[in-house]
């Protein structure tokens, strides 16, 4: 096992934990170390109790740990609340002079966070930068890296502010030499030149790469930062980013843009995706491509707005009335988020259908140092009739019956003929029909025939450590990293894992072949009913011997997963 440290900054919403955490990530990466960071925050703007946790390691890491080596808390309440999360030899750093702290048996290191901030900057606001300074010092991150991190996060803000925070952090860095050491010092690795992005940024970048020029959505946690990222790059990449009046408008605008010839995307979380159901069905009927991201959060209804869950799988597969083809992708990491965004555009375009990307708050908000994506590994394929040949088209019919079920899609105004797209059952020309025979033919084309092609382009499930495994974990989406690491760490049994990054059409054959001889299959899901487990039963008839489910709104840590595996074997 690589050597590592897990550190956490805890405090109220509004205390700047987010900026301190991001600065820390950048500092760590600058120091040449790998990291995995995730966020835990409440649905409020001030107060409460949030944290930002960074796992720092010599090797790449893809999931969080349960216990921390160092927790720094920006106020006494948070300190008390987080004391139990400090690991055996770890420490809780907090400002004991600000109020009483219930640290239990945890080693408490007193540090004058607010006072230092005040004395250096004249206000307590910079306590977050103080925390960043302390953490860097204690974890052995060089002072230069700390500065780099802070500068990056405050880039573009006024000089005075940047200066104040830098001074605060530097002072803290010095003062923290008196803090005890966690007893591990990490060796510099090769992380320095890697990207530092979260799951939502990766999706947005993938969409931009795929030629998405129109984005419309309605704000909803945890999808909103996709819109922020698209807006951020709108100018540079010439995108139109339009906040819609509601999610129904968003998906219908996106459909209009695709129909007109652009590539477009929308995103929301479960409630918004539920509202888009009818629009998804419209995409199915009119054979208009569309890419939709569902950044899942615990439901039903409003649920836990800022937490994580994987309980929209059934909805993603079955939402919308009637029957039509769709693809549902479930990226397991930041690289897959980028690559599958491109694939979703290609497939939506090719099969003229909705492509849904299922992520969740955990993946959306997790930051990891990532290799710069090889943009050529994921080809952008365009599936409308190009402008040049468009001029020669005669007697165009939008819904021509073809062998593949795919009717060549032309761009309005590029061809001479008029194009009719219709949400009623329609003729090849796209006009309303009531004819039984045409209906049967169109359903065949839209559904059965297209499905044949689509089923040939399924993302293969990814096997890890399957050879000789006594137990195989199966999961989809954001649990990929934690499953893999559990395979590596559980030593009293040979554990393998299979990760699905596409859940519809379900990779039935591939999965069956992978698992047919597995002695024992166990699903790992962030939901309560075992939705993946049901799909496996339905689609492969394989026997799932056990299920590890978690639905408290928190992601799996590798420690919890290992414990639960051990309980079951």
């Amino acid at each position, binding site marked *: 096992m690589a050597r590592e440290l897990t550190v956490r900054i805890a405090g109220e919403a509004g205390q700047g934990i987010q900026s301190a955490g991001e600065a820390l990530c950048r500092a760590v990466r600058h120091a040449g170390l790998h990291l995995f960071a995730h966020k835990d925050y409440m649905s409020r703007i001030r107060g409460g109790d949030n944290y930002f946790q960074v796992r720092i390691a010599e090797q790449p890491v893809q999931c969080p740990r349960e216990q921390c080596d160092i927790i720094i808390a920006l106020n006494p309440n948070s300190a008390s609340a987080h004391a139990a999360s400090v690991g055996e030899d770890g420490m809780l750093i907090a400002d004991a002079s600000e109020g009483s702290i219930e640290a239990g048996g945890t080693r408490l290191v007193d540090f004058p966070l607010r006072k230092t901030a005040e004395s250096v900057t004249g206000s307590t606001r910079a306590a977050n930068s103080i925390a960043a300074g302390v953490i860097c010092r204690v974890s052995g991150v060089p002072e230069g890296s700390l500065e780099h991190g802070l500068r990056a996060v405050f880039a573009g803000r006024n000089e005075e502010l940047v200066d104040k925070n830098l001074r605060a952090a530097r002072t803290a860095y010095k003062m923290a030499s008196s803090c005890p050491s966690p007893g591990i010092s990490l060796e510099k690795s090769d992380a320095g030149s890697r990207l530092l992005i979260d799951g939502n940024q990766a999706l947005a970048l993938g969409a931009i790469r795929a030629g998405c020029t129109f984005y419309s959505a309605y704000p909803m946690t945890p999808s909103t930062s996709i819109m922020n990222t698209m807006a951020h790059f709108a100018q540079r990449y010439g995108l139109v980013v339009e906040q*819609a009046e509601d999610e129904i408008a968003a998906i*219908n605008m996106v459909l209009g843009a695709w129909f007109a010839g652009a590539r477009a995307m929308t995103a929301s979380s479960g409630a918004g995706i539920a509202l888009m159901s009818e629009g998804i069905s419209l995409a199915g009927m009119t054979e208009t491509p569309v890419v939709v991201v569902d950044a899942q959060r615990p439901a039903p209804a409003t649920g836990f707005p800022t937490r994580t869950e994987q309980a929209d799988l059934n909805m993603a597969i079955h939402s919308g009335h009637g029957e039509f083809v769709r693809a549902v992708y479930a990226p397991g990491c930041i690289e897959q988020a980028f690559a599958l965004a491109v694939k979703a555009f290609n497939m939506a375009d090719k099969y003229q259908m909705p492509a849904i990307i299922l992520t969740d708050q955990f993946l959306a908000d997790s930051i990891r140092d990532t290799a710069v994506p090889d943009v050529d590994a994921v080809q952008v394929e365009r599936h409308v009739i190009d402008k040049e040949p468009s001029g020669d088209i005669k007697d165009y019919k939008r819904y021509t019956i073809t062998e593949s079920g795919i009717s060549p899609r032309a761009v309005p*105004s590029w061809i001479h003929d008029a194009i009719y*797209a219709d949400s009623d059952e329609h003729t090849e020309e796209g*006009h309303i029909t009531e004819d039984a025979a045409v209906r049967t033919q169109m359903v065949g084309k839209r559904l059965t025939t297209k499905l044949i092609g689509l089923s040939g382009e399924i993302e293969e499930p990814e096997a890890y450590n399957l050879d000789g495994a006594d137990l195989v974990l199966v999961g989809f989406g954001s649990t990929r990293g934690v499953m893999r690491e559990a395979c590596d760490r559980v030593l009293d049994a040979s554990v393998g894992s299979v990760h699905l990054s596409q859940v519809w059409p379900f990779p039935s054959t591939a999965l069956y072949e992978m698992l047919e001889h597995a002695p024992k299959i166990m699903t790992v899901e962030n939901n309560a009913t075992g939705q993946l487990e049901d799909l496996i039963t339905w689609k492969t008839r394989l026997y799932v011997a056990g299920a590890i489910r978690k639905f408290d709104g928190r992601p799996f840590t590798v420690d919890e997963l290992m414990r639960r595996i051990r309980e079951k074997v």
Partner: protein
Amino acid sequence: MEPVEFKGSDPIAWCPGCGNFGILNAVKRALAHLGREPRDYLLVSGIGQAAKLPHYVKCNCFNGLHGRALPVAQGAKLANRDLTVLVTTGDGDCYGEGGNHFIHAVRRNVDITVIVHDNQIYGLTKGQASPTTDSGFETKVQTAGVTLEPLNPVLLAVALGCGFVARSFSKDIEGLSELIVEGVRHPGFSLIDVLQPCVSFNRKNTYEWYGERVYRVDEDSEYDPYERTAALSAAGQWGDRIPTGIIYRNDSKPYEQQTGLSHREPLIERSIRNIDMEPAFTELS
């Protein structure tokens, strides 16, 4: 171009005598008058009798969901600002199911022209009250007569600051086609609410009923549609006298100009085969 060049090939499914025929003729005349090719127009509609219109015209058509024509039209226009985009929709489609899109599309002010076939009834679903049905009107659902205040879409649009608000009567094919031409030429969101007799379900607001009441605001040569106060008061009229023509105008900048979209090539012309990710990657590394 001649109106006949915009004749569609699909057989018409409206009732004989329906006011929709007048609107169809006016649309074809206007498209011909505007002089573009069928390929350059896009008619977007929702669901209802009105929403069938695009099938009867030779030009691009997206016939989507009930209530959702406006977002589709805006998305299409933003993707390709070179298209001339019109919406043909019903009073239920646009002000009922689609009410939220209506108020926000007015605010967004994308350059589209919206023709509402306002028959004050749900035609296709057989005669329930629509948002514009007069109070007291009895239907199978509103058995004791409609109790809700009818929506006045013209007043609503003026109140929302819509840059082009007009009313017409489907029998006045020439007047309507002129308004459509004007609406299309207006840079921004244009509303044309068309009084349209439904001979099957609306036995109150008939050709005669409308005929006796409509007058043109420009009969009064003093009437200035740019005057908001006068417009609000004209827009508020309903009952014995119903104003038609351009009720209100203003010169608010359309979305495309505000966002600079009108100075750039249409989104659909952008080559997407090899978008350079370096700048983004660099920024995020």
